[in-house]
């Protein structure tokens, strides 16, 4: 599949996407008229205050939620179909490693379910541990690792079965800033070496600007897109790019977008 689809071809396409949750207090409009195209190889960040639907959109792509209106395709097929074809790996807010499995055992979990042979499992575990710089930690249990290392292991778990798309829902939200910086650098490196399409939910402006080729600014009630920014930053991004004028300008535009979305409330 990787060979047939070229870089730049649309991977995620949402047209007039709507999602309304029926709750006890009446309907909640989680997503309203969301139009978005994510191309192959993009690093897309979704940023906005809580309740803006950024996580909900990601969950729709993963077929964990089902839109109530509009159309959404992943790799040209429905999200459910795409999931069956193992189109994506999902990284949650918490690492969510099974405490009774070693790190290697945790990475083996999706591989077991997807029916990889034992030998192939071992080979893949080694490869992804190397990719997230956890070589030699396979035999450790999760409690023996720091929070940042646990989240790295959970990224390795999502990478193990070679999905083209990596969906990350505030993966570093619970980590301190120093660890977060380091992991941001690593994610960029990972993205450069694997060429995956990445969807990344965050509520940190610097994180979004630093990582993304495309920043989707969202606002709440109803959850909608207020701005889509194509980042002019180069693919190669050292950490100190965050002091450059371009970076600050993009961050400013994101902040403006967030403020505009909040205008009627603040």
């Amino acid at each position: 599949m990787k060979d047939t689809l070229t870089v730049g071809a649309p991977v995620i396409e949402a047209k007039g996407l709507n999602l309304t949750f029926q709750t006890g207090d009446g309907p909640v409009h989680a997503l309203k008229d969301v139009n978005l195209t994510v191309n192959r190889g993009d690093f897309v960040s979704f940023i906005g205050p809580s309740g803006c639907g950024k996580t909900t959109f990601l969950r729709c792509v993963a077929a964990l939620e089902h839109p109530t209106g509009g159309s959404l395709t992943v790799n040209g097929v429905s999200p459910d179909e795409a999931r069956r074809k193992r189109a994506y790996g999902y990284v949650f807010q918490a690492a969510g490693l099974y405490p009774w499995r070693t790190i290697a055992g945790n990475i083996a979990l999706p591989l077991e379910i997807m029916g990889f042979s034992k030998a192939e499992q071992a080979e893949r575990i080694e490869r992804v541990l190397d990719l997230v710089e956890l070589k030699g930690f396979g035999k450790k249990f999760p409690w023996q690792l720091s929070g940042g290392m646990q989240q790295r292991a959970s990224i390795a778990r999502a990478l193990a079965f070679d999905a083209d798309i990596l969906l990350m829902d505030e993966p570093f939200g619970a980590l301190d800033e120093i660890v977060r910086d380091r992991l941001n650098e690593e994610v960029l490196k990972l993205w450069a070496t694997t060429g995956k399409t990445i969807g990344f939910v965050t509520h940190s402006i610097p994180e979004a600007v630093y990582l993304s080729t495309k920043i989707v600014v969202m606002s709440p009630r109803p959850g909608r897109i207020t701005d889509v920014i194509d980042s002019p930053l180069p693919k190669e991004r050292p950490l100190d790019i965050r002091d450059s004028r371009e970076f600050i300008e993009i961050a400013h535009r994101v902040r403006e977008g967030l403020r505009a979305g909040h205008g009627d409330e603040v």
Partner: protein
Amino acid sequence: MREKALPVLAVLGIIVVIWYAAAVWMNSTWVYDQAERAGTTVSFAEMVPQTMAQDRPLLPPPHQVAAELWKGIAGQAVTSKRSLVYHGFVTFRGTMMGFALGIVFGVAMAVSIVRFRVMEMSVMPWAIISQTIPIVALAPMILTVANQMGIDSREVPKAIISAYLSFFPVLVSMVKGLRSPDAMQLDLLKTYNASESETFWKLRLPASMPYFFASLKVAVAAALIGTIVGELPTGAIEGLGARMLIGSQFGEPLIMWAALFAAAILAGMLILVVGVVEQMARRRMGVPA
């Protein structure tokens, strides 16, 4: 170790002191009655020693119980009908059968309750009601029914009574344990397109293990109580329960108390073994020691 033992020993010491005081107080009635019948009087200092070595004391003092217990355990061949080891083994065998039956039944019910909503609504209330019926009332009925069905051995009804008590803690804990995985962990498996059975074997079951082992300690004690109650109704001649009943019916408090303590020792050993098994399982599942 010493810090742990000290509070336990302190409490034990207090119990022994209270026990001796109670024994003097309760057994003194008999001493005074004897003296009155003989037309003599006894002083307090004369009375106390006489409360310590009666044949049929109302409340045997600790050393008498200990002596009887020792006689029952080490004083005869283990195959003798008077050996507490023999009776203890009979009770142990019954307990293990009831315990195993209770685990199988409890886990099976928990699995079906977690899997099928209709089971939760139909079965769970009955499981709770079942535990409100006094087992002493139910035990003779189970024995009679088993007899009617042509089961001569007492082992089967005993195991059923024992399982009747021990399945419940396992059931309640396992329902809780199987439901312990949170939404995120379930979503994760959904993203792998995992089937219902894979979710069960790879997530729900391992996640329920801490709950399972916690329930085993309660369940093994309940199984022992069930077995002893199953040994009480008339006709039983073997087991610690039967031994207690014999002691009570023939006015031999020492036999009763020795059997009682044998049962307590058995319970302690069972809980200890379950604890060791739990430790082993925890270590295998990567829990820090």
